[in-house]
């Protein structure tokens, strides 16, 4: 179907001026709504787990700001990565490579939302939270997207910090500080990110190779990636239990995080052992899916325990700590 009815209007191009073809849904897609949902959820857990309390309305506005800031990062990421998105099957239908949104529109959209979300979060809560959100956007867009992603196979290890920070933003919004507790939540997501993304990269390594993105399976090979996944999983499992030891979780959290951590290592072990054909791909796919469940389950348990006022395991020792 042609959108040009006569020769007054050239076919739309990515770079040329002309009427925009972008629909509202294309701008929504620029926000990466699925990524945003995990960011909102982990920020909510940081907000609820924090001592003291933020007024629910201000808390909701803080979450909205974190969501919009995450969306802005997604838009700026798509603006910068439009060239590699165009050659990867997973991303070639995104609004910019598909020609529905011009790069300049995505850039302006991302910058505007970044500014608004940081300012509003600072005004609604405090400037530590606003500063952390600004740092998160900067880290994701400049450090990860522009620098690390095309340069080193450690891209998602270091860049994962951006995705790990939302609970700390939530905590800072509620308390005005960043404590050991929020740092632990950040560390869990930080350690979870490599096995999560490398499991996907094992399945999509041809895609990344075609785009020239130095993901670990492309640069170091699949066997090394499987080994690294296992190492990170072994580090993640005990780290996942740590919140129970620092006053963030009760018995339910201790039990669930222990069992779920062991299962995580089990899935990673299968990825390490099964290296050929369909079973290998299936094992990687299962680890990817399970990793999403794992993180959601851990954070949901903290959320539920805190919401219902369940005593932390460390409660009897509160006077000593």
């Amino acid at each position: 179907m042609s959108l040009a009815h006569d020769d007054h209007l050239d076919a739309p191009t990515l770079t040329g001026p002309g009427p925009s073809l972008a629909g509202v849904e294309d701008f929504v897609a620029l926000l990466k709504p699925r990524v945003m949902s995990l960011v909102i959820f982990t920020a909510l857990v940081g907000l609820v787990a924090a001592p003291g309390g933020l007024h629910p309305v201000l808390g909701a506005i803080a979450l909205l700001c974190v969501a919009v800031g995450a969306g802005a990062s997604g838009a700026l990421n798509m603006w910068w990565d439009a060239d590699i998105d165009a050659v990867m099957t997973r991303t070639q239908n995104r609004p910019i490579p598909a020609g529905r949104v011009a790069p300049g529109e995505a850039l302006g959209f991302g910058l505007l939302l970044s500014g608004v979300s940081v300012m509003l979060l600072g005004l609604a809560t405090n400037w530590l939270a606003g500063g952390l959100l600004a740092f998160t956007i900067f880290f994701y867009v400049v450090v990860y997207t522009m620098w690390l992603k095309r340069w080193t196979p450690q891209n998602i290890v270091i860049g994962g910090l951006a995705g790990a920070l939302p609970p700390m933003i939530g905590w800072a919004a509620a308390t005005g500080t960043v404590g050991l507790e929020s740092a632990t939540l950040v560390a869990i997501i930080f350690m979870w990110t490599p096995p999560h993304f490398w499991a996907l990269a094992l399945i999509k390594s041809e895609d990344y190779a075609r785009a020239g993105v130095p993901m670990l399976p492309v640069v170091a090979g699949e066997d090394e990636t499987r080994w690294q996944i296992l190492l990170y999983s072994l580090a993640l499992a005990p780290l996942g239990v740590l919140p129970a030891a620092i006053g963030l979780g009760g018995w339910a959290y201790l039990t669930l995080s222990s069992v779920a951590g062991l299962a995580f290592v089990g899935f990673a072990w299968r990825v390490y052992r099964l290296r050929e054909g369909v079973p290998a791909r299936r094992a990687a796919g299962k680890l990817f899916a399970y990793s999403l469940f794992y993180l959601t389950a851990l954070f949901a348990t903290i959320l539920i325990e805190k919401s219902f006022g369940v005593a932390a395991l460390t409660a009897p020792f509160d006077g000593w700590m």
Partner: protein
Amino acid sequence: MAEEDGVRLTTEQQRQRRRRNVAIAWALGALVVLFWLVTIFKLGGNVLNRPL
């Protein structure tokens, strides 16, 4: 100048532009409400603490 000079939007482009404009209007309205809410809830009970 002939009427057909310049860019003429297709019906689809006009529809998309209208939808974008409506979305921007909603976003601006939401921003106004958000700033109002932030002001009210940051002030809290201090709203009443003033000379009458």
